[in-house]
């Protein structure tokens, strides 16, 4: 708590402080546990047979079975699904970086503030408002169910996100740096490419990761424009529609859909948090 800074209150008794600490950790666990519980529970359910999953109350200790995963990757072709998500995620992130980084650099360097505001607005608009024209266009072009249509739609999320986050990084560079580069005969593009970009690389990596996550997690665009190309969230969602829901299989699909992005993002730590704080809203 803020009082920790320059705390001058009298010392409490040993037991009192111990009690305080217990109360503190109990509160933290009470708030955090329900938030994290689903991520644990989907793992547990995915490792049980349908019969084990019928048990009420559910067993906490049980022999785990890989059968749901075997079925998922065999019969349900989950590997193909994951590679679809990977391809579209990488392509839309890469395109977002190529188009977005020069723009973000210029917006930061020359203070194109109106443009910056428009980018932020593009981040916040409801994606479904663009989806009808996209759908009609791709039906007309017979491109529904292609990677291209999916990359196009996901780019509408990743491009504004990457620009918005990167503006902040480029603004953080001291302007003397640019002046020095100019004296050395560096062009604007040369300065961007050889000086500015390497300096903000770690931050860029985190925002690229974030753009990839948003693409991977996207449901609505993939549902409407995916057609026969199943993306991970759509494939997981489709487990509902089977006549008799196999919860174990569904949870296995949920695990292989969300755990990869969770594990990929954790190493980015504070850089990712900074990105989330400064611009994370849904597409």
């Amino acid at each position: 708590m803020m009082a920790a800074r320059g705390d001058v209150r009298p010392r409490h008794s040993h037991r009192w402080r111990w009690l305080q600490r217990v109360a503190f950790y109990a509160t933290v666990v009470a708030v955090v546990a329900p938030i994290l519980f689903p991520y644990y529970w989907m793992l547990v359910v995915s490792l049980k047979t349908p019969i084990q999953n019928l048990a009420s109350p559910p067993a906490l200790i049980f022999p785990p079975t890989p059968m749901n995963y075997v079925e998922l990757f065999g019969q349900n072709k989950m590997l193909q699904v994951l590679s679809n998500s990977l391809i579209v995620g990488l392509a839309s992130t890469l395109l977002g970086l190529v188009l977005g980084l020069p723009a973000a650099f210029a917006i930061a360097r020359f203070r194109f503030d109106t443009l910056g505001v428009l980018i932020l607005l593009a981040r916040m608009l409801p994606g479904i408002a663009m989806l009808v024209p996209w759908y009609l266009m791709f039906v007309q072009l017979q491109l529904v169910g292609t990677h291209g249509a999916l990359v196009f739609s996901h780019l509408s999320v990743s491009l504004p996100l990457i620009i918005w986050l990167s503006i902040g990084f480029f603004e953080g560079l001291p302007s003397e740096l640019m002046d020095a580069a100019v004296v050395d005969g560096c062009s604007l593009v040369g300065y961007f490419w050889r000086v500015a970009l390497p300096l903000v690389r770690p931050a860029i990596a985190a925002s690229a990761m974030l753009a990839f996550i948003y693409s991977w997690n996207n449901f609505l665009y993939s549902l409407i424009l995916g057609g026969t190309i199943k993306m991970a969230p759509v494939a997981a969602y489709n487990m509902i529609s089977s006549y008799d829901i196999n919860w174990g299989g569904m949870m296995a699909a949920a695990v292989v859909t969300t755990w990869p992005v969770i594990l990929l993002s954790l190493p980015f730590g504070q850089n990712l948090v900074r990105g989330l704080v400064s611009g994370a809203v849904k597409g």
Partner: protein
Amino acid sequence: MHSTAARPSQDPHEGAWSAVRSGRLRPRQQGFLLTLPAIIALVFLIGFPILYTVWLSLHEWYGSRTLAMDWVGLANYADLILRDSNFHRSFLITVTFTFFTVTLSVMIGLGLALLLNSEFVGHGLVRTLLMIPIVSTPVAVSLTWKYILNYDGLLNSVTHILGLGKQAWLGTQLVIPSLIVVDVTRWVPLVMLIILAGLASLETEPFEAATVDGASSLQLIRYITLPLLRPHIGVAALLRLIDAIKTFDEVMVISEGGPAGASETLYLYGYKVAFSFMTFGYASALLIVLFLIVLVASMLVLRLRRAA
């Protein structure tokens, strides 16, 4: 960049930058050129589609290739706002859902941030773990919640053991509260992160001065922390507001808007009108209304950000 070195009989410093020096292209103009590819892409991705949606919203059309679009002017909007009881219901549902999820997630997120804003053992671990809900796939988590809230699910086995009996958590009465709880558990961590970042940016002097004057930690929070944090809390609340209006994945997976429309939010209703009923003209009017609601909220965020 000496890209023009290949050009013969020119000054070796000839390049974009010397063009600037000789006044042919000023740096600002060069900078504008750098933004051009992104601007063009965004006009195609977002600008034109929105305009086309406005155009469609003035027509009656079912996506047919053979039947022409009928110009109906503002009739779609009039139907929507004056006559469509499904729209009225989904508007009310969206307002209720949004109000509670924003209020609860901001209050709990603020509390959690104040609680975790100290150096305790395991503080890095807790912060890292709380990143999980923010980056996780909404569909996957919602499927898990669907299983937990299902009539034969985990929650009912727990209430059964406790002697509270089974509840229809996804029935007409409880579906909205259930969805609110699901949404709150997902977004509390983000609110917490935004407020923690705000706390880290506060000056220390007011706190030191107040502590010297003998203020208790509760008084510090009430009279110093909270007033100083107000802009950050405001930004978090408005971002939550915009996100809550746009909630789709959770509702689609957990209840599909049911039972009997009891959880049909505006976003979900728009989705159904467009892609289940294929009434594109009418759907476009609905989506434009949704667009305007979010636009107003976004403008508020921009204003507050400038103030913060």
